[in-house]
């Protein structure tokens, strides 16, 4: 009650821009996509029907509404191609997130344990790759991984392998690319929670007869779960919709949902099915978000 009174009228005005932003750049485009997903494909400009307009009066608008249908969504469920793409996306996102966690946690932990003045530098080193365009970095990986690329040259020179290994167009290359691109998103939230941890808790654990390794699992890890959740979400959600990395680094035999969407939109010119694919993807991504939100709320209530 009293906390609300702090927000005077001008302070409330300051809260408006984010809502305007959300309406203009999320809600309105989302409405377009939703509408298109309920339309039928057509050889026309734009390539779908019906197109809403007032040229035929209110009755025409009513007819347009009546023409909307869920056919595209039915297609998504009936054709295994889409189901397989969604499953592959979930699989890739889960596996990548687990690898990212396994790689990112030790790095974040190490950073949090550095002397204060080194932590800023370590943080910079994590962020610096962002200064180069994402695409350029993926192309650099192609260069490294290709048949006569750097990796094969080094391996041959060291006599680890006798003939060049096929790296490119494999799932390994794709996972490598994804983990490489998303690592900062995993490290930064983990680092933030780990750096905040009171070091005297570890001393207390040691004082109570618990070895360093046990103290890590009994104290450090449970207290960093919030960061684990945030990092996992920050990685999982965009990886679900990944398009560029799998397209450039993975083989072409199985597609992630982002690639399928691209195909429908640009190759098949089927905007309605592409839109339906996007809407379902959005719905799927709400699940982990809601779970995280629920967990966090429960944690707050426990306080």
């Amino acid at each position: 009650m009293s906390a609300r009174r702090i927000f005077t009228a001008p302070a409330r005005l300051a809260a408006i821009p984010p809502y305007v932003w959300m309406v203009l750049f999320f809600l309105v485009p989302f409405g377009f996509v939703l509408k298109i997903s309920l339309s039928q494909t057509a050889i026309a400009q734009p390539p779908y029907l019906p197109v809403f307009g007032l040229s035929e009066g209110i009755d025409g608008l009513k007819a347009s509404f009546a023409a909307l249908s869920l056919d595209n969504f039915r297609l998504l469920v009936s054709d295994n191609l889409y189901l397989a793409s969604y499953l592959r996306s979930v699989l890739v996102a889960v596996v990548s997130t687990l690898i990212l966690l396994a790689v990112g946690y030790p790095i974040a932990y190490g950073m949090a344990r550095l002397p204060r003045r080194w932590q800023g530098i370590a943080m910079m080193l994590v962020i610096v790759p962002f200064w180069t365009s994402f695409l350029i970095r993926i192309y650099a990986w192609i260069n490294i991984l290709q048949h006569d690329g750097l990796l094969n040259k080094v391996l041959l020179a060291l006599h680890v392998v006798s003939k060049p290994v096929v790296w490119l167009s494999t799932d390994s290359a794709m996972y490598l690319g994804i983990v490489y691109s998303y690592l900062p998103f995993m490290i930064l939230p983990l680092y933030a929670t780990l750096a905040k941890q009171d070091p005297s808790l570890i001393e207390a654990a040691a004082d109570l007869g618990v070895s360093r390794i046990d103290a890590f699992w009994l104290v450090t890890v449970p207290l960093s779960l919030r960061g684990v959740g945030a990092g996992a979400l920050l990685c999982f959600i965009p990886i679900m919709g990944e398009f560029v990395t799998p397209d450039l680094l993975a083989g072409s035999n199985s597609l992630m949902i982002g690639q399928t969407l691209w195909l429908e939109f640009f190759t098949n010119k089927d905007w309605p099915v592409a839109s339906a694919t996007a809407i379902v993807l959005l719905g799927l991504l709400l699940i982990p978000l809601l779970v995280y939100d629920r967990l966090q709320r429960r944690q707050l209530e426990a306080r």
Partner: protein
Amino acid sequence: MTNLTATVADPAASDAPVIAYPTPLLRINGVTKVFGAHSAVNDLSLDIKAGEFFALLGPSGCGKTTLLRMLAGFEAPDTGKIELNGEDIAAVLPHQRPVNMMFQNYALFPHLNVRDNIGFGLKSAGLTRLGIDTRVAEMVALVKLQGLEKRRPDQLSGGQKQRVALARALARHPQLLLLDEPLAALDKKLREETQVELMALQRQLGTTFVIVTHDQEEAMTMADRIGVMNSGRLQQVATPRQLYEAPASRWVAEFVGDVNIVEGGITHRDSHRLTIAGRDVGTLFAIEPRQPVGDAVICVAIRPEKIRLSRRGPATDLVNSGAMNSLEGVISDVGYLGGRSLYKVKLDRGATLRVALANTARLDVDAYSIGERVAAWFAPDDCVVLVQ
């Protein structure tokens, strides 16, 4: 410093019956710890007996916490030895020492409830599940936290957190319990109650307590012996009464309690009585301290409550014979503190004395007021003569 409990090893007295002094529980021998260019603890030696309640008292940054952390094993001494039960524990890691610490900020695990916090160290102590439950219940009862076992630390008050921290530190039945400013976060009333409870608990358990504090009242109330530290060194180790009534140095006299310090020189000495020319005070009579002082510049410490005031001075023959010190002056300030009042007396010779008088009557029509002429008088016994 004090080697009160050191084993006597005097070859000349080998025929005499050997008095077996017990080895102290803890022996700190010539310990030094340097951080960068700053030596936090400087060649410090100290013995602590089993069952003792020992306080390390000193201003912040005096090295007392560093010393405590070395006892817990979080810091290693650069030189010197720390022995527990006669064994060097330098190489013993914190989690293997029979020593537990209660942290200043309590360091309770925020993700665990009271029960799991207290039981945290019991599994590694080799207790069974049943044993852990029993021990936790004992500890909960000991610190009177029944009914709060399921609470998380952030659902507890400051006093309750302090109890959880204490119970957790005691749960493993340590030989030595270290307490780092255990009461600093509590308000005054709760602090005083907790002091009494801690003392009762220590007596009940018989565990050796070493407490670090900057609060002299706390140290005086609770401890059997106090070690006063300043800039990494022990200034004096003594019982609270010795510390207050017979401070070893001017620094200790000024650090512990309120005190009037008069600088001066000895002009005459006969049969343990010193006649001193005090600066801005005049002639003072004092008893020669047990450790004789040279003719160097000395100072005299007089506690404010040892001085009495009256409108007429004591009998002149008492003063003339040196049986009483009497100094004339004018009241310059009165501070009413409830149980006692603090007067400042501007002496005719220039110095200002602080005098504490108990307010024994509720209606004190006879109280001294500012501007009034008084005689401040005190016995030579009440003067502590210290080397500058």
